[in-house]
């Protein structure tokens, strides 16, 4: 049985006159130590998916249907206290912008120790020792000193290391990383991503990596889910998704990767933009941007169906795959 399994998840935001469907029927599974990538443009519902696993969706969002099975328990049904004991303990999270993730008025040390003490019955001194050890593990120089610092005394890359250290403090089974390098300088993005990959391998932690960057996902993960406008477009093993995409949107994303082109060649771009959630077209949400679209696509929403080892939500997947 999978460690974490999301089944037919629906998330909605009731806003004034209408209700927005942020996620519509998402399913995936994550095994122990496995690394999964959730890919999509901003607004596709990736972050909402991440937050709904921990039941931390921003108000007024709510899980409308579906199950989140972790360790054999449905997280959607357990009590608040049971959920608290899982958060930051069994499932940790790394946020997008390290400048905003750490509380500006508490020291790094306070924010680390409190996490340990929330889940373990240990002394302050022991917690401090463990925290400093973790800071060393994420390669923060002069860890003792940093332990006493306030977040604003650290650079962005340093802060993200601290966040990673906090995520790893309690030896979690799963880490959910929501665009962990997007807000950082390009020069240190690869460094932080490499560090995360190493740490997840060393500790056999399962990683759910949420990103818009297909290149990063292809290097780090074993499985990929591609989301479009709140729905699954395609999912499957990373290698196979990259080499044999069966959804026109995935194809477009791969064609848009720089290294697929000759140097100096013009980058490919999928025409048009993703619809916002309050303006999703009828039928397949992707049809206005799709070269394969026909009457069927404009009328009916394609349900995900297995094709080879992928699951693809496209009426014409076979045609697309052979094109």
């Amino acid at each position, binding site marked *: 049985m999978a460690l974490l399994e999301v089944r037919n998840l629906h998330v909605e935001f009731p806003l004034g006159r209408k209700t927005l469907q942020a996620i519509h029927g998402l399913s995936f599974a994550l095994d122990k130590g496995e690394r999964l990538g959730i890919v999509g443009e901003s607004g596709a519902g990736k972050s909402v998916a991440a*937050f709904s696993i*921990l039941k*931390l969706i*921003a108000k007024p969002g709510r899980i409308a249907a579906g199950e989140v099975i972790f360790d054999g328990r449905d997280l959607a049904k357990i009590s608040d206290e049971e959920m*608290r*004991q*899982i*958060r*930051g*303990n069994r499932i*940790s*999270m790394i*946020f997008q*912008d390290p400048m*905003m*993730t*750490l*509380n*500006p*008025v*508490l020291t790094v040390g306070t924010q680390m120790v*409190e*996490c340990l003490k*929330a*889940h373990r019955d240990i002394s302050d001194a022991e917690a401090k020792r463990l925290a400093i050890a973790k800071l060393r593990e994420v390669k923060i120089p002069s860890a003792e000193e940093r332990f006493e610092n*306030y977040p*604003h*005394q*650290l*650079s962005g890359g340093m802060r993200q290391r601290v*966040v990673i250290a*906090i995520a790893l403090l309690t030896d979690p089974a799963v880490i959910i990383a929501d665009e962990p390098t997007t807000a950082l300088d390009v020069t240190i993005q690869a460094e932080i991503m490499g560090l995360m990959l190493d740490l997840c391998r060393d500790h056999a932690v399962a990683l759910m990596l949420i990103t818009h960057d297909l290149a990063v996902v292809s290097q780090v993960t074993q499985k990929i889910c591609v989301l479009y406008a709140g729905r699954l477009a395609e999912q499957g093993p990373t290698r196979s998704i990259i080499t044999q995409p069966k959804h026109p949107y995935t194809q477009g994303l791969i064609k848009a990767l720089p290294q697929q082109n000759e140097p100096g060649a013009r980058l490919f771009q999928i025409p048009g933009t993703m619809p916002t959630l309050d303006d999703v077209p009828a039928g397949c949400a992707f049809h206005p941007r799709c070269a394969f679209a026909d009457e069927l696509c404009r009328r009916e929403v394609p349900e995900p169906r297995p094709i080879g080892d992928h699951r693809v939500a496209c009426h014409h997947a076979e045609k697309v795959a052979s094109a």
Partner: protein
Amino acid sequence: MEYLQFAVKRLVQATIVMFVISLIGFSIQDKLGDPLRELVGQSVSEEVRDELREQMGLNDSFPVQYARFITKAVRLDLGNSYFFKKPALEVIADKFQATMELVIGATLIIVVFSVPVGVFCAINPKSWISRVIMTLSIVGISVPVFLTAIFLIYIFSVELGWMPSFGRGDTISLGGWSTGFLTWDGLHHLVLPSLSLASIMLPLFIRLIRAEMMEVLETDYIRFAWAKGLVRRRVWFLHALKNTLLPVITVGGVQIGTMIAYTILTETVFQWPGMGFVFLEAINRVDTPLIIAYIIVVGLIFVVTNTVVDLIYSLVNPTVRLVGQKP
């Protein structure tokens, strides 16, 4: 080092403001009433007047006169009150204690109630208690202080007879400061004036704390705190509250100044023997030195509280970037 720089800058600004206030005070002295008439009356001939005028330096140029005014002012000499026949500053200093006790009483009420109530409303925005509190607070903001004062008197003094309606009651002198906090009668007299003075600030602070805290609760670092699996108590009362109260401190500092203004209203209704009461009397009597003394003392209170609050705020809040400081 950066802090010192910041402090110096802030002090310079405070000095400039005080300079402007003293300039205003001086111009008032120049325009308001005739010092000669106050000294010698109407019955003196024009020549004698001119001579006196010359002797007193009233014919000197503006800068010279101002320089004389300011040298006296720093020696705490703002002239004698025409009515009380003693130094104006002394009169104000006497009344200062009564006003400050009123401000302290009101501040206590505000601090004790606004924080828990504001936090409760931020944490439970949908509960009916919060809705009732928010509705009451907007009613509270809409009732002018002097009306609250009048109705408190009407209900608790006139109708019920529970509370005294005017004056300070018994006071005890503590090393030159006469306080009403230490006698039963004094405290009794403090209740209604403090309540009415607090009546406008309390709803303002409840709303401010609620709004700030609700904003803080939406931030990423609070979400991260939840994601770490911390207990509610810690997220709310450490992570969120600390970030909520820091900006509230600044507003609080400014509001102390505002409260001094409102003391004029409460003191008038309750005939509280404070600075504001004396100031209004001075206006009606055109007691110029007393008016100037009040303006300068109140200006000083404003400037000092604002400066001190700013300095403390930047000390307490680790995120305030001071001039030229690198992260």
